[in-house]
């Protein structure tokens, strides 16, 4: 390791206060060229604020920032760019209607040598192709960003940072939307960047990744620096206890064995090009995990069962009776709930209160159907805020003000209020912090024990293995394996997901 080098970036004793919050309290970090520093902590620990300070989006109240040992003032995002700091946010910031090349060189497009004001297109495509090689993206530079996958867009963002001679690159949860192969590619690119001497600050909730690609880990909690240690000396348990400030004895809460009757049965479900002859069942009180690579049809399957996407054929039986589900409304009436993959886009009303978010599907059951009783609504919502430990000063709080974990609990509370027979959860803990994760897991396990049939889609194998009674593995729109809890291992699931072996369902 080149840790004997001079640091490329030092942030010293950074303080930032927002009204009512000491968001950063004497935080110091150091980054060396050619290393990957992991920045971990629960949501609200101060990671984002610290990175915003570095990106020039937020001004610190106190503290010094040194680049190559020289104090600098990062007064705005443009200045950050000039200093060689690049940041790639979770929400990508590309212009969809423009080509890859235009996106990468936006603001700095090569000019035609003779015609003033005209872009030198051949030169732009040439330069773009060159940069794209560094991120191993082999697509024409003229391609519109709209037509790229999420992973490709991310590579374009990284390419853009490279084109601006980035020296410190911040990656904020870069793998949250990537498939395993794409993640692999990203790690290779990160490796290349290290060899070129770029320093990388890597923010992630996924422990495996921290251990795979980082050299040192810095832990933040409640705006304070808890410590920095070499990754080789860290263990998952140690990092988690540093992050949450307590020991989480068990990450996963397992539900007791399920012996209930078959609750939901799917027979021969088909959707052209997406789902191919899907059959399975879930017992009351059983947690069935659905694993598979991104794009294998997991989300499409659960959306079809819920009536959110149309199907071309197949039957769904609920408690042994054939049912017709043409819309989510039908599913909700039958007692099926879906906690979707993307809670902000598909589940939450960010500008409405917690109360309004939770009670929505059960309004017609609170007193008279047309005019729900406010008192009943309040007591219902208060129950769920309490039992799910949603942390909020009031049920009138807008949902946009909550952390990811609390937002997810609001979505789950909404479905619990409907007393579902079947609850489908698609990536239930994506983007929420470790503490909240454990709570959501415990909640799912308790629901199963109360007899709810649960289908849980997850890309996190430890979650699938830790929670499920049975694991279904999907590949290319089919269920390719049906593995009971005792026999499920990461290797076996991955083998089925990638098609190395097929185990009869």
């Amino acid at each position, binding site marked *: 390791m080149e840790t004997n080098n001079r640091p490329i970036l030092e942030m010293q004793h950074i303080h930032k206060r927002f009204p009512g919050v000491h968001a950063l309290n004497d935080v110091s970090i150091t980054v060396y060229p050619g290393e990957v520093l992991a920045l971990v902590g629960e949501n609200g620990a101060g990671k984002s604020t610290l990175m915003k300070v570095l990106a020039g989006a937020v001004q610190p109240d106190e503290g010094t920032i040194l680049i190559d040992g020289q104090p600098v003032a990062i007064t705005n995002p443009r200045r950050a760019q000039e200093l060689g700091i690049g940041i790639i946010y979770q929400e990508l910031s590309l212009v969809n209607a423009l080509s890859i090349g235009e996106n990468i060189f936006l603001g700095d497009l090569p000019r035609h040598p003779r015609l003033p004001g005209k872009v030198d297109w051949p030169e732009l495509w040439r330069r773009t192709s060159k940069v794209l090689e560094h991120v191993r993206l082999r697509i024409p530079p003229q391609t519109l960003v709209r037509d790229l996958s999420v992973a490709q867009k991310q590579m374009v963002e990284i390419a853009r940072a490279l084109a601006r001679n980035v020296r410190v690159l911040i990656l904020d949860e870069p793998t949250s939307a990537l498939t395993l192969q794409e993640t692999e590619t990203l790690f290779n690119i990160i490796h290349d960047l290290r060899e070129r001497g770029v320093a990388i600050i890597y923010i992630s909730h996924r422990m495996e990744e921290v251990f795979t690609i980082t050299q040192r880990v810095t832990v933040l909690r409640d705006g304070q620096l808890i410590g920095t240690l070499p990754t080789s000396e860290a263990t998952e348990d140690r990092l988690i206890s540093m992050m949450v400030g307590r020991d989480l004895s068990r990450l996963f809460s397992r539900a007791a064995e399920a012996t209930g009757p078959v609750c939901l049965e799917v027979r021969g479900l088909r959707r052209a090009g997406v789902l191919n002859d899907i059959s399975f069942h879930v017992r009351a009180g059983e947690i069935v995990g659905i694993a598979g690579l991104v794009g294998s049809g997991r989300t499409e399957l659960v959306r079809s069962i819920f009536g959110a996407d149309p199907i071309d054929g197949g039957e769904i039986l609920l408690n042994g009776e054939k049912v017709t589900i043409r819309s989510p409304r039908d599913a909700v009436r039958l007692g099926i709930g879906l906690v979707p993959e993307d809670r902000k*886009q598909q589940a939450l009303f960010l500008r409405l209160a917690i109360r309004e978010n939770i009670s929505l599907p059960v309004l017609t059951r609170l007193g008279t159907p*047309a005019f729900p009783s406010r008192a009943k609504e309040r007591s219902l919502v208060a129950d769920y805020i309490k039992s799910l430990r949603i942390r909020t000063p009031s049920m009138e709080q807008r949902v946009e003000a909550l952390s990811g974990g609390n937002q997810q609990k609001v979505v789950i509370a909404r479905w619990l209020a409907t007393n579902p027979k079947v609850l489908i959860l698609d990536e239930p803990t994506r983007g929420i912090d470790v503490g909240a994760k454990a709570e959501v897991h415990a909640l799912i396990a308790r629901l199963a024990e109360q007899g709810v049939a649960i289908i849980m889609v997850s890309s996190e194998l430890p979650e699938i293995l830790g929670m499920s009674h049975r694991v279904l593995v999907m590949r290319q729109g089919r269920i390719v394996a049906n593995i009971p809890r005792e026999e499920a291992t990461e290797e076996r699931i991955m083998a089925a997901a990638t098609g190395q072996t097929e185990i009869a369902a």
Partner: protein
Amino acid sequence: MSVEDSGRQLATDATPVAEAGIAPSGSAISPRPMLAWATRVKELNILVALLILCAFLSLRSDVFLTQGNLFGVARAFSLTAIVAIGQTMVIITGGIDLSVGSVLALSGITTGLLLGEGWPLGPAMIAGILVGSATGLFNGLLITQVGLPPFIATLGTLSIGRGLVYVLTKGYPVTIPPEHQFLLKMGQGYVGSIPIPVIIMLIVTILGTLFLSQSTIGRYIYAVGGNEEAARLAGINVSLVKLLVYTLNSTLAALAGMILVARLVSAQPSAGLGFELPVIAAAIIGGTSLLGGEGTVLGAVLGAAIMGVLENGMVLLGVNTYAQQAVTGVVILLAVSLDMWQKRRRRRV
């Protein structure tokens, strides 16, 4: 009325929390009623602005505060307010309805022509209002079934409606036969000293507020505008909600059409020309967000009131007629800028 209505926020009843939940214990919820009340009563700003405007005008003009003038102003803005209530609901769902002026004229002309044919008053008025509702349903179908953007769908209806009006009347006003006293009272009559259009406006305001803030469908309207996909996945029939809202809005426009016919004793083919602009402005001044998901009935009425009082004040103060329109534009921009500035501040804290 505003205070009472929003007073429900104060009634944070202390319903005992049952232990029936999944996990026992947990963080206590401490509602801060006063704070919640103050931040949630969005109409408060507009009310304060209206009162300041009134105070200023009463200092500058002896006529302004007279009962006659105030009721006159109220009667003048009552039509805008009634239609702005419907428009607000449309905008909350994330849509817009440009066709209200044409609907207002079309339903007025329908009633006028039927009366001329010798129809009795009741059926003629009902037919006029139904023409309005049908137009709204048509808008809703274009938007939900054909998938047209609301702006385009209602722009088309605006043009079709106005065209039909000119075809039906050949451009001439339709005079109302004088025997229909009841109709004329609707536009010109008083209960005590309150003009009847103002009373109609108050009734629509109360019913609209109850509907939007207390009913299940009212909540669905906010949900659809707040996040349409999430509303669908929560089991709400989004298309039905939209159909309802556009139909309701056009029905209110038709009601305004009736009142206008009654006031003028004739149905004018040019009635309500450009009416969509003050109506949308009233909704926006009243705190409705064009992005959807936000807005109240009371806000819309207060928005219409501000514009009405402003117009009256400029007449009283002798402001140049041409300048009046420009001042109205400035007020719209100021009101919305102030609103956005406050929202941004609230979000940052």
